[in-house]
């Protein structure tokens, strides 16, 4: 019997209130912008007001001589030392990958690109000095449309490349031997539905603006940064700027949200580091919201051409997908990989026999795109779930019924899909049946029919979204084979102090996910110690030096595994000590509730905390036991995990105003075993909210010259409490085989599932009006226009 089973249900599975809250609700939080150091200078960054221009010269002399200004540094001043911001994923061998200097030297390629930095005694002085810097720009043509950008004769974003194309990546199941010939199947099909869906550009809009503090002492350079990835930041600062890695310490203190938006190595981090090194003074840079909107990477922004072929009975025979993905002006950390992270998921939960996928990455003079909650998988899920609804309508079939005919059945797992991935487990019927019951699917269909028959002004639509996703990024071998620069393992260190208290170091880097609480629950069960006696530390490369941080719903699926392994090693390390104290054979001991008991001898036991003290004292250690009770472990996943679920949305659409009201929303997710249901529910709430936001509210809009028209929270409307409905959450549970906790990952599920559920509901309400699509966000104006364009009447 394993340790996990012994203690199952004590802490893991409980609605623990979070440890993190104590500091967050009392204002004692350590945000990066709260860091204040003696002699610290404040930075302000001058940004390009143009989307594309040559820099003919910068005159900073007036700014330099202002009182309180310590220095002004331009791209030219640091051209030889600033290197290029990294892109960690070479998705094809011939990928075009232009340099991305943190401070532009000769040319700017998106509005908001940094061109100079001021260091001053205080922030207000630094801001004033920006106004005194003169930059001579020679405007160059903006490149805004990804289809036009690929046309012959288009102006170029990077002249030296001779093209605006970065890469084309293709997959064909016939060529790979994982399925049939999609093109042939489409030619031969009874029914083909061809659609173009547009993933509008969105902005992650984490609530804490990014901030970085750099303290260069002669011994070490310490960097505090509002990042999801402190370990990445340290590696790339060393690798690109040449400062020895052991001289850099990166700390991600409390971080106010990320959603992929802080999964980045930023220009601002590099600039702050360079200025601090040059001036040998601590510096702080904190962006304004307007700067965050321009400069932090954006998400989505792709055109999806989808063809699905089927027999009359609804059996899908092929799926073909062609993507055009907007890279923006440069490739950032994962820019080219982001659309491709969905490449294996376009077939969703279905048994399609043939599949072709092609993706082209295109440069434009816009802010670079990169990971945003789900990164590629929400886009894939949107395309497949939208087209399944459209196919159902074409066939005159209920959308759930069409899915049932095509999905993988419970007893068919493990199932190797047409893209070559092997899904480990799942029960799509169970999740769907539960969701339909909770929504009252059949009654709502009846009400829909009545409203249609009566020609009601307010029509009812029901949106279906059945999804799966690949979580637990990622097997290192797989990442390496696809051209990614790093691995996907995770680590944990567990140490029991002489007094029996426990310190845990994790390589994950939470920014709202509650790892301190969930990790404590896991350790409490594994070691049989109280929840309160455990301290979880993270986000500091000096202490938790081994780690690959938090993104891609990986922390529990990968980091949780490492944590359980480290705990088991602690238990095994103390076992000989316990046997020695009890004068028995280690093999005669069982570890239950934090104590080693001699099997068959009631009362003979030693607690692990007693062993910790004895091992610390080291007065009488058995052979082979080293002083101090601690252990570490790393885990490299052998495969992905595949959470899944069914989300259903009922929407009322006012056909005269175009107003959409979400009447009810049901989310049934199967994320395997749950460590803390309260935290999981919160993740689903927030994820669904972000997916709804893409469906109904948010869009980053540029004008034709490349000016961002949605550069503040006035124009970029993230939903408020008044905009969102209560949602009903529930779960089904098929444990992840091969994971000690049975956990699969939940961070992105809500966002992946909800966007198509909502848009499907809107379109479903309006099908009698001849509407087959509404472009996101489905604002009243767009909905109203779609009804006008549809031309039909019920």
């Amino acid at each position: 019997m394993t340790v996990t089973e012994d203690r199952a249900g004590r802490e893991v599975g409980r609605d623990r209130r979070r440890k993190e809250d104590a500091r967050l609700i009392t204002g004692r939080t350590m945000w990066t912008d709260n860091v204040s150091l003696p002699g610290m200078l404040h930075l302000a960054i001058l940004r390009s007001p143009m989307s594309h221009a040559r820099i003919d010269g910068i005159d900073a002399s007036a700014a330099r001589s202002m009182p309180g200004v310590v220095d002004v540094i331009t791209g030219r001043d640091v051209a030889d030392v600033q290197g290029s911001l990294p892109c960690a994923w070479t998705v094809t061998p011939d990928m075009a990958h232009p340099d991305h200097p943190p401070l532009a030297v000769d040319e700017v390629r998106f509005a908001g690109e940094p061109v100079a930095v001021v260091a001053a005694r205080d922030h207000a002085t630094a801001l004033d000095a920006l106004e005194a810097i003169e930059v001579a720009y020679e405007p160059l043509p903006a490149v805004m449309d990804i289809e036009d950008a690929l046309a012959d004769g288009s102006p170029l974003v990077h002249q030296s490349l001779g093209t605006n194309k970065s890469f084309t990546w293709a997959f064909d199941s016939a060529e790979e031997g994982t399925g049939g010939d999609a093109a042939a199947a489409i030619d031969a099909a009874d029914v083909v539905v061809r659609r173009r869906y547009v993933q509008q550009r969105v902005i992650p809009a984490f609530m804490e603006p990014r901030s970085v503090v750099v303290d260069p002492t002669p011994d070490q350079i310490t960097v505090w940064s509002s990042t999801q990835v402190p370990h990445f930041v340290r590696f790339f600062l060393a690798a690109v700027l040449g400062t020895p890695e052991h001289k850099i310490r990166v700390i991600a203190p409390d971080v106010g949200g990320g959603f992929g938006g802080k999964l980045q190595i930023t220009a601002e981090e590099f600039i702050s580091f360079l200025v601090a090194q040059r001036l040998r003074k601590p510096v702080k840079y904190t962006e304004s919201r307007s700067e965050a909107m321009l400069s932090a990477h954006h998400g989505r922004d792709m055109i999806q051409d989808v063809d699905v072929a089927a027999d009359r009975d609804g059996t899908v025979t092929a799926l073909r997908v062609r993507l055009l993905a907007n890279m923006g002006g440069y490739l950032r950390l994962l820019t080219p990989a982001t659309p491709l992270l969905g490449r294996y998921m376009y077939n969703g939960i279905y048994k399609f026999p043939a599949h072709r996928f092609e993706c082209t990455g295109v440069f434009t003079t816009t802010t670079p795109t990169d990971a945003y909650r789900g990164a590629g998988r929400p886009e894939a899920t949107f395309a497949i779930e939208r087209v399944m609804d459209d196919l159902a309508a074409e066939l005159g079939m209920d959308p759930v019924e069409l899915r049932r005919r095509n999905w993988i059945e419970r007893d068919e797992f493990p199932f190797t899909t047409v893209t070559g991935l092997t899904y480990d487990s799942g029960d799509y019927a169970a999740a769907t049946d539960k969701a339909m019951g909770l929504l009252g699917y059949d009654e709502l269909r009846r009400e829909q029919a009545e409203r249609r028959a009566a020609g009601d002004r307010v029509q009812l639509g029901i949106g279906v979204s059945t999804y799966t996703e690949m979580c637990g990024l990622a097997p290192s071998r797989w990442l390496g084979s696809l051209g990614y620069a790093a691995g996907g393992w995770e680590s944990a260190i567990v140490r029991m102090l002489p007094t029996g208290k426990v310190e845990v170091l994790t390589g994950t880097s939470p920014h709202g996910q509650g790892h301190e609480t969930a990790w404590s629950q896991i350790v409490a069960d594994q070691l049989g110690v109280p929840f309160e006696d455990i301290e979880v530390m993270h986000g500091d490369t000096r202490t938790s030096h081994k780690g690959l941080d938090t993104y891609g719903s990986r922390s529990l699926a990968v980091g949780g595994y490492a944590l359980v392994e480290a705990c088991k090693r602690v238990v095994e390390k103390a076992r000989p000590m316990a046997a020695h104290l009890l004068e028995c054979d280690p093999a005669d001991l069982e570890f239950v509730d934090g104590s080693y008991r001699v099997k068959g001898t009631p009362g003979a036991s030693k607690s692990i905390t007693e062993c910790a003290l004895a091992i610390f004292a080291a007065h009488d250690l058995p052979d082979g036991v080293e002083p101090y009770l601690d252990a570490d472990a790393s885990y490299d996943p052998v495969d992905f995990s595949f959470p899944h679920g069914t989300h259903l949305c009922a929407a009322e659409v006012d056909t005269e105003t175009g107003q959409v009201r979400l009447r009810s929303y049901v989310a049934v997710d199967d994320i395997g075993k749950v460590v803390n249901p309260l935290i999981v529910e919160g993740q689903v709430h927030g994820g669904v909210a972000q997916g709804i936001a893409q469906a109904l509210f948010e869009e980053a809009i540029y004008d034709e010259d490349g000016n961002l028209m949605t550069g503040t929270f006035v124009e970029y409307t993230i939903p408020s409490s008044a905009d969102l409905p209560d949602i009903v959450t529930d779960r089904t549970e098929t444990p992840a085989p091969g994971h000690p906790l049975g956990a699969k990952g939940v961070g992105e599920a809500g966002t992946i599932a909800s966007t198509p559920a909502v848009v499907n509901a809107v379109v479903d309400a309006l099908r009698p009006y001849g509407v087959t699509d509404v472009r996101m966000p489905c604002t009243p104006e767009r909905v109203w226009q779609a009804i006008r364009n549809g031309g039909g009447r019920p």
Partner: protein
Amino acid sequence: MTRISMTVDGVRYDDDVEPRTLLVHHLRNRLGKVGTVVGCDTSNCGSCTVLLSGRSVKSCSLLAVQADGVDITTVEGLAGRDGELHPVQLAFHESHALQCGFCTPGMIMAAVDLLTENPDPSDTEIREGLEGNLCRCTGYQNIVRAVHAAATSMRTSVPSTPEAAGAPAPSMGEEVTT
């Protein structure tokens, strides 16, 4: 420079400030009240919300000089001197109404004001009352739940009975069934 005087979380401060200094920057940079945070530059997010003479205001939408002579409460001054949490703070913890926690100080202060105005708000009244405070993490559902819970506990706690007044608040991390 202009001389101003204000009481923040029970302590009086007299300072010379530049007339253009925003109240939130005065609180954070001069008085060290870094519990109050800045999330935007257009007075849209509400992260900077404090109580000014008992009513919530966005402290980025006011100059420090405009707050001369007033009494301000920030999230740092909400708990009792003995550390006993305000019912709204406790309810946010109990209901898991925060994730990253960046919006939380402002959200809590706005909720305190909302409940002062309306001790028994409906769901819709809560959602509309907190419309000026943005949260990117929670989807607001648990925030609404927390405000209801706080409302109930504030209405039912009768400070005049010694048992109620003396009842210890549950400590952090403890499981409480709601």
